[in-house]
């Protein structure tokens, strides 16, 4: 009996205490989390958040690779020591960076006019096919053969984006789906060619014959480095100039910010969008040219492999800035090169590189939440 009374008293006391903590009007006092939209953020804080996110993404990726059986010491060695101290490996990274810079910029400029060009791979494939056709067919005088191959690749890449572009501008077909579907079509065209009319008659493997010496990018005197990187850097600076300094770049910023307002102030939206998207396709095509003329020297069933995803990743990490894309492309090239040696030494499938890139995109995308929003904690209830 006594025990029960004591328990009741305890309960009453607790109820009374709760009531005291939450005065009349406000209900129970508790900690609430508010989400606020941040009006602006300093560029330094923005960059710090980006770098922190990349670091988290890299750490997670390292964790996955270690879990998949790569010893941590070897991971450090392959990624940093072996690639950065050995000139041959470093030049291999730079060679690989060139097409990545081009696809990164291709994705970036399309995003600047709000066109999700997910068809980078298809455009790379057609760029590669066009370049190889010119190279194998020995079209034009040998002195300008490479220039002709590049021109053909630019045209073919741009041509492959014409259909999604027209469909979007004229009747509003979603370009994400249309460009993606055309990737599958492009892959099948490539397979048809290398299992059929373009198959190498010498070894009957599913790839095209090798390009003759005059159709390959010349080395420029340091290890394996070829003319691809200077070309890509030149493109990066030209595009940087266009988007930063030119009237077209201003129009692009208008369209990105608010296309209805852009229309109201007289920006030629259709023209600027079309030109930009065609340039995006052409640059992807040029990346295909660099892949066949500088790395594979022929069409293979997967010469475009992974470059579409990487283009999107690079554009996203660089916030669609062409010079930022150059830096991001070198990092992704490092990942590609190190991934290849992991594949050789530890049988890690090449898809691990894809997983790592996707993981970094996801972490960086998640981090933007903290760029755009501020989380505020506040006590509610008491003060009302």
């Amino acid at each position, binding site marked *: 009996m006594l025990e029960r009374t004591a328990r009741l008293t305890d309960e009453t006391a607790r109820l009374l205490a709760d009531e005291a903590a939450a005065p009349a009007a406000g209900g129970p006092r508790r900690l609430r989390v508010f989400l606020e939209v941040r009006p602006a953020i300093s560029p330094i804080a923005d960059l710090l958040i980006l770098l922190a996110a990349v670091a988290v993404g890299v750490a997670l990726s390292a964790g996955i690779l270690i879990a998949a059986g790569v010893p941590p010491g070897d991971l450090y060695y392959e990624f940093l020591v072996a690639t950065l101290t050995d000139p041959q490996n470093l030049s291999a990274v730079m060679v690989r960076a060139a097409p990545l810079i081009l696809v990164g910029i291709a994705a970036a400029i399309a995003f600047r006019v709000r066109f999700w060009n997910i068809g980078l791979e298809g455009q790379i494939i057609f760029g590669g096919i066009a370049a190889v056709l010119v190279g194998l067919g020995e079209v034009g005088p040998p002195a300008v053969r490479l220039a002709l191959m590049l021109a053909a690749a630019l045209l073919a890449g741009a041509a492959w984006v014409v259909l999604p572009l027209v469909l979007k501008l004229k009747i509003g077909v979603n370009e994400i789906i*249309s460009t993606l579907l055309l990737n599958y079509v492009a892959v099948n065209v490539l397979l048809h060619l290398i299992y059929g009319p373009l198959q190498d008659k010498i070894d009957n493997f599913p790839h095209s014959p090798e390009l003759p010496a005059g159709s390959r990018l010349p080395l420029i005197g340091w290890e394996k480095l070829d003319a691809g990187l200077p070309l890509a850097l030149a493109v990066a600076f030209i595009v940087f100039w266009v988007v930063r300094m030119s009237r077209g770049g201003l129009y692009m910023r208008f369209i990105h910010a608010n296309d209805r307002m852009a229309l109201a102030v007289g920006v030629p939206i259709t023209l600027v969008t079309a030109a930009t998207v065609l340039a995006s396709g052409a640059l992807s095509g040029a990346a295909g040219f660099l892949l066949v003329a500088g790395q594979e020297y022929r069409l293979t069933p997967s010469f475009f492999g992974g470059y579409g995803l990487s283009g*999107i990743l690079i554009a996203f990490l660089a916030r669609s800035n062409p010079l930022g894309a150059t830096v991001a492309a070198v990092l992704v090239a490092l990942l590609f090169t190190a991934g290849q040696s992991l594949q050789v030494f530890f049988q890690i499938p090449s898809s691990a590189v*894809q997983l790592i890139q996707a993981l970094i995109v996801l972490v960086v995308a998640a981090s933007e939440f903290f760029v755009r929003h501020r989380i505020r904690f506040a006590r509610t209830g008491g003060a009302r």
Partner: protein
Amino acid sequence: MTAFLVNWAAATPAFAVPFLFAALGLILSERAGVLFLGVEGFMLIGALAGAATILTLGPYPIVALVVSMLASSLVAILFAGLVVGLRVNQVLAGLAMVFFAGGLTALLGATFGWTNVAFSGLPKLSFGPLSDLPVVGRILFRQDLVVYLAIPAVIAVQYLLTRTMFGLKLRAVGENPQAADSAGVAVQGIRFVAVLMAAALIGLAGGYLSVGTSKIFVDGMSAGRGWIAIALVIFARWQPWRALGGALLFGGIEALIPRISAVGIQVPQYFMLMTPYLITLAVMVWIAVKKHGSFGTPAALGVPHVREERR
């Protein structure tokens, strides 16, 4: 000719089922306002999970399909956390999830030896004498369990969306999250649940690819079906019954392709293989021309909801 048509009609349901379940999942997610571009990747997760279950636990196809659904939902917690919780751009997150899932399934499949290993999957059911009926028997009474679940699934999704409180809230959240929020609906909660349910259905679609039809897991085996399903949902105007029609259409096309060369019509193989994508594109153009594209689109599709954000 009759034999050709019967074969074709009998093969179509198995090709239509992955499209249907993926489309039903997409409808749930997109009616709640979340653009689910990751379908292609989540189908791979389901396919690998199903194959892995059979290869490790033994030939229990139903268990495998349930594991496919669970695995897909589990990975979808990450996706939902990003797009619903952290308001990440849904296009970007969806694309990244496709590549994430592609890389993850390839890595896991290779690490544990689940890739390219054949197993015994979901058997075709037999209804005794019914299955032996001419024509009808082969088309209607010799399918597997999941095919028979297709129409109940459509009814269930339709019922959920239009006849339940949850469905009403789900649609409200997809059409006007601000209004739903003012009315006391937990916008983020409903969206989160919708994404997980969608992922379960998409995982089933993927699991059916490995456990039901191919009876093997191969890297990237969803082969663009996820993207086709996204187009199919636009074609279906986000309505479950129309999705059934769309799934039969695309399934029929896919079932037709291996049969065309079998009857002696010579078309280069890779041109045959690209037809589903071209037909999907043609359907999208047709929808856009008929101006039905925006009709039925959930108004808040792809728009994250932040309570204190001014629009």
